[in-house]
């Protein structure tokens, strides 16, 4: 049997850990539990998800802008932006709209459901670099979801940042997310501007496009200072107009960040489904600066 080839077990010497280079971690999911579910609108719910093992929970650290893959055995696996503050480690909040097979199933589950979490994956908003600067957070529709994590992080360290503006637009008042937190956010000395495309009878706020909010901000006496960073997230058409306005207002491209959405099946740069050109949204994104996005064909 001299010529019988030896079998090489690639997992032999690498115990399952969460290192990027470890082949054992590829399909490893952290056991987690949905602890509570809050309906935010008719279609969106906020899921609180806790990693069950206390050591794994405290060891789970992410940066605002990153995402996790959420798995329900037999139902599916999908990527979701983390909406909670990074100081909460493995106590995650995911805001999810019931729109596809997987999310419609999630819509029907009860607290206590066991799920699997893997990640965190992807790039993040460079909040450390942004310290000492003004911050402009611009979100449209579901775009407020990935913005909430950097926002909470900024609020927790409010004194480290200059002026903070949030501009948030939704189609109608019923579709506004996190309404219960607006007053709380305002207490941190931030400028919160909210607009809806179509008002109803009860709506007392502004009506109109988010670009109008931005136009006012840009034309204010305290104009955009050189040290402003902008984070933009929303539908592709919004990216286009908002980023154009910001560029015209003199904001350098490398100080504008966007978070992109794509279909994903792995989150690890292997399935190619999220490719833009050949840039993997899961590895090189979802957070890109505007310069990178301009260089990617068909990105926005």
């Amino acid at each position, binding site marked *: *049997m*001299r*010529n*019988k*080839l*030896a*079998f*090489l*077990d*690639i*997992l032999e010497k690498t115990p399952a850990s969460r290192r*990027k*280079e470890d*082949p*054992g*971690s*590829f*399909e*490893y*999911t952290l*056991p987690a539990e949905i602890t509570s579910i809050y309906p935010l609108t008719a279609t969106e719910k906020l899921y609180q998800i806790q990693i069950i093992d206390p050591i794994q929970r405290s060891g789970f650290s992410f940066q605002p802008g990153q995402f996790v893959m959420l798995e*329900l*055995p*037999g*139902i*599916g*696996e*999908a990527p979701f932006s983390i909406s909670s503050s990074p100081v909460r480690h493995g106590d995650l909040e995911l805001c999810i*709209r019931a*729109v*596809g*097979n*997987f*999310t419609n199933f999630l819509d029907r589950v009860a607290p*206590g459901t*066991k799920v*699997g979490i893997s990640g965190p994956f992807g790039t993040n908003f460079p909040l450390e670099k942004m310290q000492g600067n003004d911050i402009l957070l611009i979100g449209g529709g579901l775009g407020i979801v990935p913005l909430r994590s950097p926002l909470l992080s900024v609020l927790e360290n409010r004194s480290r940042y200059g002026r903070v503006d949030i501009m948030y637009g939704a189609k109608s008042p019923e579709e506004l997310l996190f309404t219960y937190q607006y007053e709380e956010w305002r207490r941190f000395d931030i400028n919160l501007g909210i607009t809806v495309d179509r008002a109803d009878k009860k709506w007392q706020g502004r009506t109109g496009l988010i670009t109008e909010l931005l136009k006012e901000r840009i034309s204010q006496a305290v104009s955009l200072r050189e040290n402003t960073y902008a984070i933009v997230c929303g539908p592709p058409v919004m990216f286009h107009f908002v980023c154009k306005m910001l560029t015209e207002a003199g904001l350098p491209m490398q100080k504008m960040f966007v978070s992109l*959405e*794509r*279909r994903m*099946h*792995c989150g*690890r*740069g*292997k*399935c*190619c*489904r999220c*490719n833009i*050109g*050949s*840039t993997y949204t899961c*590895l090189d994104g979802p957070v890109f600066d505007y310069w990178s996005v301009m260089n990617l*064909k*068909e990105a926005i």
Partner: protein
Amino acid sequence: MIFKVFKKQELARLYDLLAVNIIVGPVNRGEDRNARPLYDFDVVYDFNDLALDYTQTVHSPKRFVLPYQETLSSFALTHDGWEKHVDLNVYKPLVFFGMHACDINALNKLDLVLAQSAYPNPYYMGKRKNLFIIGLDCNPEPQCFCRSMGTDSAVHGFDLFLTDLGNKYFAEIRSATAFDLLNQLNCKEPSAKDHTLYKQMPGKKSKRYTAVVETSDLTKILDLEFESPSWDEWGEKCLSCGTCANVCPTCYCYGVDEHIDLDLKHAGKTKSLHSCNLVDFAKVAGGHNFRPTSASRLKYRYYHKHRGFVEAFEEPLCVGCGRCGAACLADITPPAVIASVRGEE
């Protein structure tokens, strides 16, 4: 590298030495409608079943490292939770007997993205690291443009590479196992005449290449011609069937599906190879499709292979085997597509 030569009849002996393992090699599968032989890679049980004079297999050997369908994990479901089991689906080493340089290079390219990048894929790595590869030189076919892609000779990624010198094989040895095997054969050091014959091989092959792809500045030209009407013309022809990705030795993208067994006690997660030409490739929940037209999908395929992969790994994700063009129902071939985008028609 160590070189040896051995007489052709010794090859059957090499096969016998390796026969304690599972051996995969080229086999004849019948004829196409023009009475040309059709070849495929499959498990072989007899040296005489090997079609070592094969031209090109219809399918690439990728299914032995990237099965078209593969179970990633299984779940045991209980009333209050579940447990996940992962199996890499690899149990035994595999001997590949007679792989052409393009296919060896294809595996080397797959290594870059699947094994040597962040989050290495263990399902691929487990199979890849358990391959013993015997390469074999080839005669270029009309559809081959491997020389344009720089993949007409294999520099690494094999254990043994054999070049036909008439009545003997010229062997390049790249692993200790291969060296040990050849020691059990009647091998000789190559003579000065063998050296000369070996050195003449590339020149002899050159005359056979008919298909050419000009790759100079291709990454820039693809960017420059992103809005070129050529893409729409090819998109018009493309049937979005995904056959090209099916036969391609380097296409690796996939989709994942999960299912629950009827007893509600078990669930599974299955990976299936996909194609960026299929309509749902970039469609997200809610219905938005980032590449709704066949032209945009076809363009993306070229963009990924000839621009993006080059940007990431300094080489294209194409070995110039020409299988995609040969299998395409609409006669779309990479040399023609790239020439039209370059304006060389």
